[in-house]
Protein backbone atom coordinates (compact mmCIF):
# COMPACT_ATOMS: atom_id res chain seq x y z
CA UNK A 1 0.00 0.00 0.00
CA UNK A 2 1.17 3.53 -0.69
CA UNK A 3 0.42 6.73 1.13
CA UNK A 4 -0.31 9.90 -0.88
CA UNK A 5 0.55 13.26 0.67
CA UNK A 6 -1.89 14.40 3.36
CA UNK A 7 -2.54 17.47 5.46
CA UNK A 8 -0.24 17.89 8.46
CA UNK A 9 -1.68 16.28 11.58
CA UNK A 10 -4.22 14.16 9.70
CA UNK A 11 -3.75 10.42 9.31
CA UNK A 12 -1.97 9.59 6.09
CA UNK A 13 -4.39 8.35 3.40
CA UNK A 14 -3.74 4.87 2.12
CA UNK A 15 -3.96 3.90 -1.55
CA UNK A 16 -3.55 0.36 -2.86
CA UNK A 17 -4.38 -1.90 -5.77
CA UNK A 18 -4.43 -5.70 -5.68
CA UNK A 19 -4.84 -8.46 -8.26
CA UNK A 20 -7.13 -11.10 -6.80
CA UNK A 21 -7.80 -14.60 -8.14
CA UNK A 22 -10.91 -16.65 -7.37
CA UNK A 23 -9.53 -18.46 -4.37
CA UNK A 24 -10.94 -18.02 -0.84
CA UNK A 25 -7.55 -17.43 0.76
CA UNK A 26 -6.59 -14.83 -1.86
CA UNK A 27 -9.93 -13.05 -1.46
CA UNK A 28 -9.77 -13.15 2.35
CA UNK A 29 -6.22 -11.83 2.39
CA UNK A 30 -7.07 -8.76 0.33
CA UNK A 31 -10.34 -8.08 2.15
CA UNK A 32 -8.58 -8.33 5.49
CA UNK A 33 -5.75 -6.01 4.42
CA UNK A 34 -8.20 -3.36 3.26
CA UNK A 35 -10.43 -3.68 6.34
CA UNK A 36 -7.44 -3.54 8.67
CA UNK A 37 -6.31 -0.34 6.95
CA UNK A 38 -9.82 1.11 7.33
CA UNK A 39 -9.86 0.17 11.02
CA UNK A 40 -6.66 2.15 11.55
CA UNK A 41 -8.66 5.26 10.64
CA UNK A 42 -11.02 4.45 13.54
CA UNK A 43 -14.20 4.33 11.54
CA UNK A 44 -17.19 3.28 13.71
CA UNK A 45 -17.91 -0.41 14.01
CA UNK A 46 -21.07 -0.07 11.92
CA UNK A 47 -19.05 1.63 9.16
CA UNK A 48 -16.50 -1.17 9.10
CA UNK A 49 -19.35 -3.70 8.96
CA UNK A 50 -20.87 -1.85 5.99
CA UNK A 51 -17.59 -1.59 4.10
CA UNK A 52 -16.58 -5.20 4.74
CA UNK A 53 -19.94 -6.47 3.52
CA UNK A 54 -19.95 -4.21 0.46
CA UNK A 55 -16.41 -5.16 -0.52
CA UNK A 56 -17.23 -8.84 -0.09
CA UNK A 57 -20.38 -8.56 -2.21
CA UNK A 58 -18.59 -6.61 -4.95
CA UNK A 59 -15.81 -9.21 -5.18
CA UNK A 60 -18.31 -12.10 -5.10
CA UNK A 61 -20.34 -10.50 -7.91
CA UNK A 62 -17.20 -9.91 -9.98
CA UNK A 63 -16.29 -13.59 -9.89
CA UNK A 64 -19.80 -15.07 -9.93
CA UNK A 65 -21.17 -12.93 -12.75
CA UNK A 66 -18.33 -10.95 -14.33
CA UNK A 67 -16.00 -13.93 -14.64
CA UNK A 68 -18.65 -16.59 -15.24
CA UNK A 69 -17.05 -19.11 -17.61
CA UNK A 70 -13.61 -17.57 -17.27
CA UNK A 71 -10.64 -19.34 -15.61
CA UNK A 72 -10.41 -19.03 -11.82
CA UNK A 73 -6.81 -17.95 -12.28
CA UNK A 74 -7.88 -14.81 -14.16
CA UNK A 75 -7.55 -11.98 -11.63
CA UNK A 76 -9.88 -9.13 -10.85
CA UNK A 77 -8.49 -5.78 -9.71
CA UNK A 78 -9.41 -4.44 -6.29
CA UNK A 79 -8.35 -0.94 -5.35
CA UNK A 80 -8.92 1.36 -2.43
CA UNK A 81 -8.24 4.91 -1.32
CA UNK A 82 -8.74 5.21 2.41
CA UNK A 83 -8.92 8.62 4.04
CA UNK A 84 -10.13 10.24 7.22
CA UNK A 85 -13.49 11.30 5.81
CA UNK A 86 -14.18 8.81 3.04
CA UNK A 87 -13.17 5.46 1.62
CA UNK A 88 -13.25 4.69 -2.08
CA UNK A 89 -13.15 1.03 -3.12
CA UNK A 90 -13.30 -0.27 -6.68
CA UNK A 91 -13.62 -3.77 -8.09
CA UNK A 92 -12.91 -4.38 -11.77
CA UNK A 93 -13.32 -7.69 -13.56
CA UNK A 94 -12.16 -8.78 -17.00
CA UNK A 95 -15.57 -9.98 -18.16
CA UNK A 96 -17.82 -8.47 -20.84
CA UNK A 97 -19.63 -6.23 -18.35
CA UNK A 98 -23.31 -6.08 -17.51
CA UNK A 99 -26.21 -3.69 -17.24
CA UNK A 100 -26.93 -3.15 -13.53
CA UNK A 101 -30.44 -2.01 -14.47
CA UNK A 102 -31.13 -5.59 -15.62
CA UNK A 103 -30.95 -6.90 -12.04
CA UNK A 104 -34.53 -7.44 -10.77
CA UNK A 105 -35.42 -5.54 -7.60
CA UNK A 106 -35.15 -8.28 -4.93
CA UNK A 107 -37.30 -6.31 -2.49
CA UNK A 108 -40.42 -6.57 -4.66
CA UNK A 109 -42.98 -9.01 -3.32
CA UNK A 110 -42.68 -11.27 -6.37
CA UNK A 111 -38.87 -11.42 -6.04
CA UNK A 112 -38.57 -11.90 -2.27
CA UNK A 113 -37.93 -15.62 -2.64
CA UNK A 114 -35.38 -15.32 -5.43
CA UNK A 115 -32.09 -16.82 -4.37
CA UNK A 116 -29.85 -14.05 -5.70
CA UNK A 117 -29.68 -10.37 -6.65
CA UNK A 118 -29.21 -8.91 -3.17
CA UNK A 119 -25.49 -8.10 -3.27
CA UNK A 120 -25.82 -4.90 -5.26
CA UNK A 121 -28.86 -3.88 -3.22
CA UNK A 122 -26.82 -4.13 -0.02
CA UNK A 123 -23.91 -2.21 -1.54
CA UNK A 124 -26.21 0.62 -2.63
CA UNK A 125 -27.87 0.68 0.80
CA UNK A 126 -24.60 0.97 2.71
CA UNK A 127 -22.49 3.15 0.42
CA UNK A 128 -22.84 6.89 -0.22
CA UNK A 129 -22.52 6.02 -3.89
CA UNK A 130 -21.99 2.92 -6.00
CA UNK A 131 -21.62 3.24 -9.74
CA UNK A 132 -20.53 1.10 -12.66
CA UNK A 133 -18.46 2.29 -15.58
CA UNK A 134 -20.04 2.39 -19.04
CA UNK A 135 -18.88 -1.15 -19.89
CA UNK A 136 -20.33 -2.49 -16.64
CA UNK A 137 -17.23 -4.32 -15.45
CA UNK A 138 -15.97 -1.86 -12.83
CA UNK A 139 -17.87 -0.91 -9.70
CA UNK A 140 -16.72 2.09 -7.67
CA UNK A 141 -18.04 2.44 -4.15
CA UNK A 142 -17.70 5.51 -1.96
CA UNK A 143 -18.28 5.46 1.78
CA UNK A 144 -18.40 8.70 3.76
CA UNK A 145 -17.75 8.87 7.48
CA UNK A 146 -21.10 9.45 9.21
Amino acid at each position, binding site marked *: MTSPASQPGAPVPVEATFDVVND*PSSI*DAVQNRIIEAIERFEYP*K*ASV*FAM*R*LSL*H*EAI*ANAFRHGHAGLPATMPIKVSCLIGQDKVVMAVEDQGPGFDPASVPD*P*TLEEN*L*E*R*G*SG*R*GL*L*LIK*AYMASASYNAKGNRLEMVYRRP
Partner: protein
Amino acid sequence: MPAGDSRIRVKRVDGVSQVEFVDRNILDEGNIQIIGQELAAIINAESGPRLLISFGGVEHLSSAALGTLITVNNQVRARAGQLRLANIDPQIYEVFVITRLNKLFQIHASTDEAMKSFTA
Protein backbone atom coordinates in the same frame (compact mmCIF):
# COMPACT_ATOMS: atom_id res chain seq x y z
CA MET B 1 -18.72 -35.53 5.13
CA PRO B 2 -16.18 -35.86 7.97
CA ALA B 3 -17.51 -34.41 11.25
CA GLY B 4 -14.59 -32.00 11.40
CA ASP B 5 -15.77 -30.26 8.23
CA SER B 6 -19.22 -29.46 9.59
CA ARG B 7 -20.09 -25.76 9.61
CA ILE B 8 -23.02 -26.11 12.02
CA ARG B 9 -23.78 -27.54 15.47
CA VAL B 10 -27.12 -29.22 15.96
CA LYS B 11 -28.96 -30.25 19.09
CA ARG B 12 -32.41 -31.70 19.44
CA VAL B 13 -34.69 -30.05 22.02
CA ASP B 14 -38.39 -30.89 22.42
CA GLY B 15 -38.69 -32.10 18.83
CA VAL B 16 -36.92 -29.04 17.43
CA SER B 17 -33.55 -29.12 15.66
CA GLN B 18 -31.63 -26.17 17.10
CA VAL B 19 -28.84 -25.10 14.77
CA GLU B 20 -25.88 -22.85 15.52
CA PHE B 21 -23.09 -21.82 13.20
CA VAL B 22 -19.47 -22.76 13.75
CA ASP B 23 -18.17 -19.63 12.01
CA ARG B 24 -18.46 -16.01 13.05
CA ASN B 25 -18.37 -14.94 9.41
CA ILE B 26 -20.71 -16.69 6.99
CA LEU B 27 -19.20 -15.30 3.83
CA ASP B 28 -17.21 -18.02 2.08
CA GLU B 29 -19.30 -19.56 -0.71
CA GLY B 30 -17.83 -23.02 -0.16
CA ASN B 31 -18.84 -22.98 3.50
CA ILE B 32 -22.28 -21.62 2.63
CA GLN B 33 -22.77 -24.52 0.24
CA ILE B 34 -21.83 -26.97 3.01
CA ILE B 35 -24.26 -25.26 5.40
CA GLY B 36 -27.02 -25.61 2.80
CA GLN B 37 -26.29 -29.31 2.38
CA GLU B 38 -26.19 -29.94 6.13
CA LEU B 39 -29.48 -28.12 6.71
CA ALA B 40 -31.10 -29.97 3.80
CA ALA B 41 -30.09 -33.28 5.39
CA ILE B 42 -31.78 -32.26 8.66
CA ILE B 43 -34.94 -31.10 6.89
CA ASN B 44 -35.19 -34.22 4.73
CA ALA B 45 -34.76 -36.57 7.68
CA GLU B 46 -38.36 -36.16 8.82
CA SER B 47 -41.74 -34.90 7.75
CA GLY B 48 -42.88 -31.64 9.33
CA PRO B 49 -39.36 -30.67 10.42
CA ARG B 50 -39.09 -27.99 13.08
CA LEU B 51 -35.90 -26.01 12.66
CA LEU B 52 -34.54 -23.15 14.77
CA ILE B 53 -31.48 -21.43 13.36
CA SER B 54 -29.64 -19.33 15.92
CA PHE B 55 -27.28 -16.58 14.75
CA GLY B 56 -25.65 -16.07 18.13
CA GLY B 57 -21.99 -15.19 17.60
CA VAL B 58 -22.42 -14.53 13.87
CA GLU B 59 -20.84 -11.20 12.93
CA HIS B 60 -21.06 -11.18 9.14
CA LEU B 61 -23.48 -12.69 6.67
CA SER B 62 -23.35 -12.42 2.88
CA SER B 63 -26.13 -12.25 0.33
CA ALA B 64 -25.17 -15.78 -0.73
CA ALA B 65 -25.99 -16.93 2.81
CA LEU B 66 -29.35 -15.17 2.55
CA GLY B 67 -29.97 -17.10 -0.67
CA THR B 68 -29.28 -20.36 1.15
CA LEU B 69 -31.70 -19.39 3.94
CA ILE B 70 -34.39 -18.78 1.33
CA THR B 71 -33.74 -22.25 -0.10
CA VAL B 72 -33.93 -23.71 3.42
CA ASN B 73 -37.22 -21.90 4.00
CA ASN B 74 -38.64 -23.39 0.79
CA GLN B 75 -37.42 -26.87 1.72
CA VAL B 76 -39.00 -26.64 5.18
CA ARG B 77 -42.27 -25.40 3.71
CA ALA B 78 -42.28 -28.20 1.12
CA ARG B 79 -42.17 -30.72 3.98
CA ALA B 80 -44.88 -28.91 5.94
CA GLY B 81 -42.33 -27.89 8.57
CA GLN B 82 -41.62 -24.75 10.57
CA LEU B 83 -38.53 -22.53 10.45
CA ARG B 84 -37.56 -19.89 12.99
CA LEU B 85 -34.53 -17.60 13.13
CA ALA B 86 -33.23 -16.17 16.41
CA ASN B 87 -30.43 -14.27 18.17
CA ILE B 88 -29.60 -12.06 15.20
CA ASP B 89 -27.09 -9.29 15.85
CA PRO B 90 -28.64 -5.84 15.20
CA GLN B 91 -26.21 -5.11 12.36
CA ILE B 92 -27.10 -8.37 10.65
CA TYR B 93 -30.79 -7.82 11.31
CA GLU B 94 -30.41 -4.60 9.35
CA VAL B 95 -29.32 -6.73 6.37
CA PHE B 96 -32.61 -8.62 6.67
CA VAL B 97 -34.49 -5.32 6.81
CA ILE B 98 -32.71 -3.83 3.78
CA THR B 99 -33.49 -6.94 1.75
CA ARG B 100 -37.01 -7.12 3.27
CA LEU B 101 -36.33 -10.73 4.23
CA ASN B 102 -37.51 -9.87 7.74
CA LYS B 103 -40.94 -10.12 6.11
CA LEU B 104 -40.26 -13.60 4.76
CA PHE B 105 -38.76 -15.22 7.85
CA GLN B 106 -40.13 -15.60 11.37
CA ILE B 107 -37.40 -13.90 13.40
CA HIS B 108 -37.30 -13.95 17.20
CA ALA B 109 -35.11 -12.14 19.68
CA SER B 110 -34.11 -15.25 21.62
CA THR B 111 -34.04 -19.02 21.47
CA ASP B 112 -36.68 -19.21 24.21
CA GLU B 113 -39.03 -16.93 22.33
CA ALA B 114 -38.49 -18.87 19.11
CA MET B 115 -39.12 -22.19 20.86
CA LYS B 116 -42.43 -20.93 22.23
CA SER B 117 -43.54 -19.91 18.72
CA PHE B 118 -43.55 -23.46 17.31
CA THR B 119 -46.97 -24.97 16.92
CA ALA B 120 -47.67 -28.64 17.57
